[in-house]
């Protein structure tokens, strides 16, 4: 048993942990409180009259936490000894864009079965039992462009759990029974993918914006799952999981030197092995150009005449810039004012507070990492008022491009982005995960250092300019999912005609066969 530091030593270690982000706060001067006894007289009439002590915060320095292991991986470590817990995450480059053609679903299946299918030494049942008894959590997944495997355990169990984790990473068993079970669950999920309007909206939006063949769109069918074998999983795993493709994030109750040695110890033999298919090729870009216009998916009622859903879900937007665009900071501020800033933003304020037309309404601007990002304004409203709410959203997009934002709006957005900045680094896990993500996607370390300064410099003129350049009425795609007849009766087409190109003609997107993804009448 490793002896633990006494509470006093914990205090010192904790202070060292904070050094990751140097914080200096001058708490409200005791003197002012002393000469200002508590009492209602002392309450200022409006919060704008409150005076706050200064808060200085510098984001943690990536270079100070970065280590390169001889076996290849880059490792970020942030020590934090407040609780006896450790988090370790191994990030890998690569994802579903590397699936062989006809095998859509292979990446996600591989991701799940690394964890679920046992290891060379452990049957899946014994592996699960061992982790459960140690009260450790462990998981793995592979997405479109990145994969990861991670665990959290009590620090006293770290050597044992790290050993199990290495075993899983290096030699997953891909147990056939577990694979069969997962395929049965996946097929059942596929069969139900026309149930929820939210799922339909997400699927069709991605298809409209990226084109139906692109790897980020839903392409998994009963047939593609049917072609996937255990050997496919093993091959896909070998391709992504190799120490030279790892970026590792470690946070919590560890000693940095100790964990680096332990990681190197478990990876060095593996690193000498062949890396088939490595290194990972770059992420492809979508070829298709989205067609603007009004697209409607009818979520019809049932055969027995039960009503269709009584609320329409709406997405309005287009493709957007990548995150290395020089307008990044101005765009962040612009979208905060338009629909990203909660109740202080224009879309939320008008659609929700003024008119009571929706519970959820706003806009997101996600700038792309590997290819174009997306701009999407959204709301859900009862069928009769979908048109009215859509009209408001389109007006607000247009107004962003026409008039300069008010000084107050600009100030609110800029202050918020700057003032909430320290929240991005609120826990050691957030810090290491931000570092690992930046490492993986090649973002410059200066990004966070200069972030607030660049936001502070954004002017109303900048906001107007980026709105004109980046919000594109001529490219607007409108997607509506709901009771089509009731929504159209509510005046949807009138609301968007003339504002969205080609909206005079409603394009109906039929629901596809959920198992084959064939769209009636062709696609």
């Amino acid at each position, binding site marked *: 048993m490793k002896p633990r530091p006494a509470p006093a030593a914990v205090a010192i270690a904790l202070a060292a942990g904070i050094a990751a982000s140097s914080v200096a706060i001058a708490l409200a001067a005791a003197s002012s409180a002393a000469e200002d006894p508590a009492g209602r007289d002392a309450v200022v009439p409006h919060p704008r009259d409150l005076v706050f002590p200064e808060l200085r915060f510098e984001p943690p320095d990536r270079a100070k936490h970065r280590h390169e292991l001889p076996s290849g991986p880059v490792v970020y470590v942030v020590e934090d000894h407040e609780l006896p817990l450790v988090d370790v995450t191994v990030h890998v480059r690569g994802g579903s864009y590397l699936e062989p053609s006809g095998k859509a679903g292979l990446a996600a299946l591989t991701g799940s079965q690394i964890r679920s299918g046992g290891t060379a030494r452990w049957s899946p049942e014994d592996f699960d039992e061992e982790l459960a008894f140690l009260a450790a959590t462990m998981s793995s997944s592979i997405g479109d462009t990145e994969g990861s495997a991670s665990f959290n355990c009590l620090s006293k169990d770290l050597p044992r759990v790290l050993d199990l984790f290495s075993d899983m990473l290096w030699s997953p068993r891909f147990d056939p029974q577990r694979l069969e079970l997962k395929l049965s669950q996946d097929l059942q999920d596929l069969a139900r993918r026309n149930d929820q309007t939210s799922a339909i909206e997400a699927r069709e939006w991605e298809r409209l914006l990226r084109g139906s063949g692109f790897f980020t769109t839903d392409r998994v069918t009963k047939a593609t799952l049917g072609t996937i074998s255990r050997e496919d999983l093993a091959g896909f795993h070998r391709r992504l999981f190799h120490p030279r493709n790892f970026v590792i994030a470690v946070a919590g109750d560890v000693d940095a030197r100790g964990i680096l040695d332990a990681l190197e110890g478990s990876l060095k033999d593996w690193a000498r092995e062949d890396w088939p298919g490595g290194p990972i090729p770059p992420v492809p870009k979508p070829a298709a150009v989205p067609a603007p216009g009004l697209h409607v998916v009818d979520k019809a009622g049932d055969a027995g005449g039960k009503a269709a859903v009584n609320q329409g879900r709406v997405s309005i937007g287009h493709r957007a810039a990548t995150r290395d665009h020089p307008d990044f900071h101005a765009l962040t501020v612009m979208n905060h004012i338009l629909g990203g800033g909660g109740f202080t933003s224009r879309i939320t304020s008008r659609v929700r507070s003024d008119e009571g037309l929706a519970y959820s309404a706003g806009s997101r601007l996600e700038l792309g990492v590997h290819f174009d990002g997306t701009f999407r304004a959204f709301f859900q409203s009862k069928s009769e008022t979908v048109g009215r709410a859509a009209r408001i959203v389109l007006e607000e997009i247009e107004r962003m491009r026409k008039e300069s934002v008010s000084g107050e709006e600009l100030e609110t957005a800029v202050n918020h982005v700057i003032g*909430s900045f320290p929240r991005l680094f609120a*826990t050691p896990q957030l810090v290491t995960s931000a570092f690992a993500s930046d490492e993986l996607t090649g973002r410059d370390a200066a990004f966070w250092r200069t972030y607030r300064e660049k936001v502070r410099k954004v002017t109303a003129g900048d906001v107007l300019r980026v709105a004109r350049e980046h919000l594109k009425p001529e490219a607007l795609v409108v997607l509506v999912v709901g009771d089509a007849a009731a929504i159209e009766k509510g005046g949807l087409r009138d609301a968007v005609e003339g504002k969205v190109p080609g909206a005079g003609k409603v394009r109906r997107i039929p629901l596809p066969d959920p198992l084959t993804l064939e769209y009636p009448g062709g696609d």
Partner: protein
Amino acid sequence: MGTAPWPLRRWGVFTIACALSVPSALLAQRVEVEEHVLENGLRLLLLPRKGDPNVAAGWVARVGSVNERPGITGLAHLFEHMMFKGTRVIGTRDIERNLEVMADLDRVKAELAREEEALRSRQRLGEAPEPARPEDLSVRHRELLEELAALAKREQDLLVKNEFDRIYTSAGASGLNAGTTSDYTIYFVSVPANKIELWFWLESDRLLNPVFREFYSERDVVREERRMRIESTPTGRFQEEFDALFWASSPYGWPVIGWPSDIEAITRDEALEFFGTYYAPQNITTCLVGDFDPARALELARKYFGRLRRGPREPPLVRTREVRQLAERRMTAQAETKPQARIRFHTVPDGHSDEPALVLLGEVLSGRTGRLYKALVLGSQVANDAAAYQRGLKHEGYFEAEGVAKPGKAPEDVERALLGELDKLKSELVSERELQKVKNQRAAGDFRRLRSSFHLLLQLLGRDASRSWKTINTDPPRFEAVRAEDLRRVAESYFRPENRSVILYHTQPPPAGAPGPKETKSP
């Protein structure tokens, strides 16, 4: 009141290490909260914690849908929305004119309610259709609607829109939100460490003199929220009906969001009365977790919350208890979802002496190494997923077991298999290893729950609303003390046929002409 140099005082590593092998070991952590009660009865919990320069701040009112009655169901939640609409100071250009317009609005609304009742009585006789068309409304009814719209417009002109949100947002605060449950209503935000005085100012102000602006459009927002959460999801309405079936007399039988008829009819006067009754300081606990000086916080609490006057009477007690169930109840639903079964038993409220055994029983059954997964998913393969859990509410409680049928199996098969596993627990003791495993997971979970200041805040407030924040320290030993015999005993006491309700979901056939999978239809 206790002062702790470190918020989380631990017993030390040896206890933690032993907890995994010695069942009777003391539990791991203690959360040392500084507790104060102001003269007006308001409770204040302070938990300073070093780390990021933010403070999670919130308060809870011990009121939820359980305190409502037929006619005003949903008021606790609607009220939560109204608390963001400002005060006499925040949210208006001219409070006097603002109040005049609000009084006019209420007058028109009251007359409108009489027109609506007249229409309703015609509908009861079948003389007017449901829902009514515009031409079914009386001339006066239509006039009133126009008047209402004009007044709402006049109110808008007097507002400083969303000023409450804007002040927080502009200060760099984030996560401003609130939540309503059947038992309590909680309001929270994360503020930069130098701005806790802003929190005291704004929160005490809205408890001191809230003004429920935009009342009627906010009712519409809540109707949209209901459509989004319940009416436009495949199983929302069935679950709501199942709750109503399960609770025969208890107020837990109506949904927290309320019945549609009530949401549409609740008046501002009813909301004001509700506020007077349940938002008195003696019914409220406030809490700060994060980077702050507790002495300063106490000073600010006295200065700001000290302004609130103790309510003249104590809030009324919840009187209606659930009557004892005499016979099994069941629902068979046709829905756009996977075939599944849910079985629910009446058990015990939060904190009852049988609760730890019931919670651990749920954990023995659930998860990847749980009995249901092993027996139903991996073993007999009747299900693709299964779980069970105890839910202790403030006044009552239940235990639920649920499973999703594997394609080719029926929900009835799942029901039988679930009941079979529950029956085993009545006659055979669970093994020591199984029991120790779930206790280990609880012990580690107790640490994981402390990682985020924000989640710690929610736990402390939620616990203080039900029993006391102290249960965060006093509950773990109660779980540690549970023996295998206790699990057997509670299984025998509660898992009785006359004590259960069952809902079976069959997959609804797709509408004629719409694509639907053939394979997954249940027999």
